[in-house]
């Protein structure tokens, strides 16, 4: 589904990613792990088109992706839930969801009931402004909003950051549900080890901008993964 080869990325002069080879499949959670500042968020930026890679190849469903603007990638089915959530603060919860309609043909522009079943709180808060929600509610809104466009690749950047335990559990259940549905590949960047380990099917551990350990859950022991992300 998703494949990158020798992907590099620079912020003006300084190189952040050094030749990342990674893959993600439909119906699987691919977990990108690593300590702070190893380039996890930068990798997601390259995949979502918000900051383009400087070299290497990127294919999606067999299609080679050049360096299109972010909105064109979104229309190809890449949905991005950024770190810090980036809710539109002055728009209502419903309007936030509706921004995803840009990727859909006119006759499919409705908010599916499924979104509200996954996140009942969004139904309750439908008319509230996004910026007035709590952090946990915003995170749920950000994931719900990403699902509107029926993506084939879902990029989640630290969905548990600063969120209370019962909401984290709920988000975990949603990710499992989406994986089992099998319609999309999920790339999860996460620092909360237990959460990430519990969900992951595949691991890619980054160290200083390069993949230092990768493999399926079966091929790696928990201790190996744990050791690779400890400082």
């Amino acid at each position: 589904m998703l494949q990158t080869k020798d992907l590099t990325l620079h912020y003006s002069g300084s190189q952040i990613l050094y030749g990342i080879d990674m893959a993600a499949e439909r119906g699987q959670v691919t977990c990108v792990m690593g300590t702070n500042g190893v380039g996890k968020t930068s990798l997601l930026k390259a995949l979502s088109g918000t900051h383009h890679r400087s070299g290497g190849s990127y294919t999606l469903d067999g299609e080679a992706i050049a360096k299109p603007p972010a909105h064109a990638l979104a229309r190809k089915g890449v949905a991005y839930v950024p770190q810090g959530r980036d809710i539109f603060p002055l728009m209502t919860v419903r309007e936030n969801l509706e921004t995803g309609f840009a990727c859909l043909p006119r006759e499919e522009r409705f908010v599916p009931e499924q979104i509200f079943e996954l996140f009942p709180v969004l139904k309750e808060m439908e008319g509230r402004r996004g910026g007035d929600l709590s952090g946990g509610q915003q995170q749920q809104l950000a994931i719900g909003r990403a699902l509107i466009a029926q993506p084939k690749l879902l990029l989640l950047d630290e969905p548990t950051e600063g969120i209370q335990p019962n909401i984290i559990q709920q988000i975990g259940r949603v990710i499992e549900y989406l994986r089992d549905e099998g319609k999309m590949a999920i790339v999860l960047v996460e620092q909360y080890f237990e959460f990430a380990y519990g969900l992951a099917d595949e691991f890619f551990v980054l160290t200083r901008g390069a993949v230092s350990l990768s493999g399926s859950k079966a091929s790696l022991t928990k201790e190996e993964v744990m050791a690779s992300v400890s400082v």
Partner: protein
Amino acid sequence: MNQALDLGLDALSLASIYFLAAIGLAITFGVMGVINMAHGEFIMMGAYTGYVVQQVVPDYTLSIIIALPLAFAVTFAAGVAMERLVIRHLYHRPLETLLATFGISVALQQIAKNIFGTQARPLTSPAWLDGAWVLNDVVSISYIRIAIFVLALIFLTLLLFVLNRTRLGLEVRAVTQNPRMAASMGINPDRINMLTFGLGSGIAGIAGVAIGLFAKVTSELGSDYIVQSFMTVVVGGVGNIWGTLAGATLIGFLQKGIEFFNPSNTLAAQTYMIIFIIIFIQFRPRGIIALKGRAAGD
């Protein structure tokens, strides 16, 4: 009593003129945050469009009906061209934007002078707009002013509808609140910025036709309104159409009120008003209608 009513009507019509002049700016400056010093010249362009149409179509009623959409089209195109060629490269650089658009403003004035000369051109209103609605000896209001008031109301409704109820409005708000995230949702921010800027400019063009009906159409028409327009938007509260309405009302009534107590000296009246606004902004820096709540953020 009569005098107060007359003054009130005067103030109301001045307020609607300011509102019309400023509403386009409420979009380009208020919503998008672009300081467009050439906004006044879009008003001027609209007024000259009206004048040119009257040279071709002699019937005054018909010519106004043609001029309104045509003025919108002309200034919409000018706005889109300016956004693509200049503004786009200067987003988030307010000082450069200010200088560049000021330069464009001067250039457009000179172009207008070269084409139409320095002499004022008439934009004649149709006969049914002549005359006034006379309540009694003291209180009367000309039909043109009523028409402008109505036009201002129509624009207010139209714009609120576009911004809050249409797909374009939703995308405009998404892009202005967070362009990068809007792009990740599949919205093309370049296209939306272009259309939004065109819309604001187009509305300035229509305002130009209305203003041309009672003011003289000269190349300096725009510069007479640019300061007032910015004051209206800032005093009312940036980023908010209701704020622009409140700002126009405040400035309109204030100006007429000061003129009433100080009838012989308009310059002094303007000075007092600007002093008042400077003090007002000290106490309410976000304007009359400020965004509230957690959502307002910074």
